[in-house]
């Protein structure tokens, strides 16, 4: 009887693990593995059929097409610009937010995070209302007697939208490294005779680097894989990598090519990140 109970006690927990593990293995891990496999299969002409033999042809085509490189460069350019802008906007916000307490802090936190819960399409729509040629900003400009500006269906609109959507993630990353014992250390620096600017340059900024690092990486990755914002705020003028992948898959039914494009995009993003990690690692030596 004791043996039976001991055996039950040992195996019962797996009943908890099994369902979620199976579901994720079957509908998350397996599809990704399958996608990578398919990127090595030979595409058939027309209709989405594909099959053996295994080939590197898809990658050769993907890498050999200058158009893909151009789109990739643009996607990465927007993502980098977005990460930078989000840092510039997010840093003062996070610095301010960390130093608030109690209910005030909770309310401000909700302001930062609530936009994340609103459908991305609707947030983009908000920007469309603001930035369109007949939009709010332009009607304001007209009232002031200023000329109209093209604010969307171009790179500017896309970056504004991307910054807005991913700024909260930047703030969250920064909060961690701007809080803690940093305010105390700043006071210590002031006590030792450093002025505001030198305190920032010698204490605040170096110690916040881990947050800056994780925030920029996060926003960069998210922005590079965004689909909705460039489609809506870029109109048909701005094509990015995720749009290209979706197009191959949904409109051309060319899956081996779409899959290899997805792998290409992921691999290149990872490569860039790796370089960035090395670079930041050197800058952050001793902060951990």
């Amino acid at each position, binding site marked *: *009887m*004791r043996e039976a*109970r*001991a055996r039950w*006690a040992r195996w019962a927990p797996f009943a908890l693990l099994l369902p979620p593990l199976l579901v994720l293995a079957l509908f998350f891990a397996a599809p990704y593995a399958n996608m990578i496999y398919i990127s090595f299969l030979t595409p058939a002409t027309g209709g989405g059929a594909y099959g053996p033999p295994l080939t590197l042809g898809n990658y050769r085509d993907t890498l050999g097409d200058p158009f893909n490189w151009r789109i990739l460069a643009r996607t990465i350019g927007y993502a980098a610009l977005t990460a930078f802008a989000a840092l510039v906007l997010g840093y003062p916000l996070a610095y301010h937010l960390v130093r608030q307490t109690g209910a005030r802090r909770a309310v401000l936190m909700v302001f930062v995070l609530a936009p994340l819960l609103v459908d991305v399409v609707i947030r983009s729509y908000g920007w469309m209302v603001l930035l369109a040629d007949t939009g709010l900003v332009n009607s304001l400009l007209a009232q002031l007697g200023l000329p109209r500006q093209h604010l969307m269906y171009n790179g500017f609109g896309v970056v504004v939208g991307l910054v807005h959507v991913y700024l909260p993630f930047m703030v969250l990353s920064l909060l961690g490294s701007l809080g803690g014992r940093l305010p105390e250390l700043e006071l210590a620096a002031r006590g030792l005779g450093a002025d505001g600017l030198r305190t920032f340059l010698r204490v605040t900024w170096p110690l916040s680097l881990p947050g800056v690092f994780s925030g920029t990486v996060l926003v960069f990755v998210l922005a590079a894989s965004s689909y909705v914002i460039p489609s809506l705020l870029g109109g048909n003028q701005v094509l990015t990598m995720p749009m290209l992948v979706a197009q191959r898959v949904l409109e051309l039914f060319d899956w081996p090519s779409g899959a290899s494009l997805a792998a290409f995009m992921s691999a290149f993003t990872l490569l860039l990140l790796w370089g960035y990690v090395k670079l930041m690692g050197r800058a952050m030596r001793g902060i951990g």
Partner: protein
Amino acid sequence: MSSIVLEHLAKRFGEVVALDDLSLAIADGELVAFLGPSGCGKTTTLRLIAGFETPDRGAIYFGSRRVDGLAPERRDVGMVFQNYALFPHLTVWQNVAFGLEMRRLERQAIRERVRAVLREVQLEGLEGRYPRQLSGGQQQRTALARALVTNPSVLLLDEPLANLDANLREEMRFFIRTIQREHGITAVYVTHDQSEAMVLADRIAVLMGGRIVQVDRPEELYRRPRDLRVASFVGVCNVLTGELAGRRGDAYAVETPVGRVFASGPEGLGGPRVHVILRPEDLALASADRPDEPSADGRVRLPGAVVARAYLGNLVDVRVEVAQGLVLRVQARPEEAPRAGERVVVAYDPRSAWCVADA
């Protein structure tokens, strides 16, 4: 109510041996305290009795009923946890009623039982409070009421007073003792506080390294410890280490750095290395310039010098160096305590000293 018998219990966690062949019989209605340093296996033993852990070997009986293969809910134990483990989402009343509801008692019966127990632990009027709205002492009593309400066969208490402040702790010791007596319930009480064990327990089991070193009534344990570890765990002691040199009447003679001393000890004490244990309250001080103080009573006299003293209010803790590097702690009444540097004689009755063999 029933007796508890533990037979050859063994339990290991990975590489760590928590219990190593532990056996003990606890009589019906008895309260046994498990005393020992942290990691000695006392809490593991309690959790084996409760059924939260399964022993690797051995058996546990409540009366004639073997329980070690049973799930905790089928053992009929009442348990009080160190942190009380009160359900935060239930009121005092609901916490106490929980065990009765699990036993599917009738509503009316539940109401009566809960009311009676809450009266007993003096929590009337707080039935609707949630645990976080109670003081530490009230939480403690709620936990006790919850454990007792089902009239369990055995009551298990895991350091139940550890989280209370000193005054309340003393009060609750007597309270728990009274309630346990009134219910006549067999109880196991785990603690690392020797004075708590002394006050509460019928017998104390001293555990070290996963084994029971000694089980005895509190006085026995204090006056006749089995070895040096037990002696120092159950109270402050002075130790004179030396070689066994024979007997004189009831007493053993021991050759020590301060000369030949006498002490009582267990029958058949093994040598040659032995320790003489002297409790501070059994030592008396006399001024060194009156060496012919009555010595006819056969007391042992050790000359020395006072090296330090600490005033403790009701008494003074005096430290006397009786040989190079050998300092004895002596309790003296404040008005009689010598000053530092004074030469004194430490005297004791050999019957109050106790010899143990070297472990």
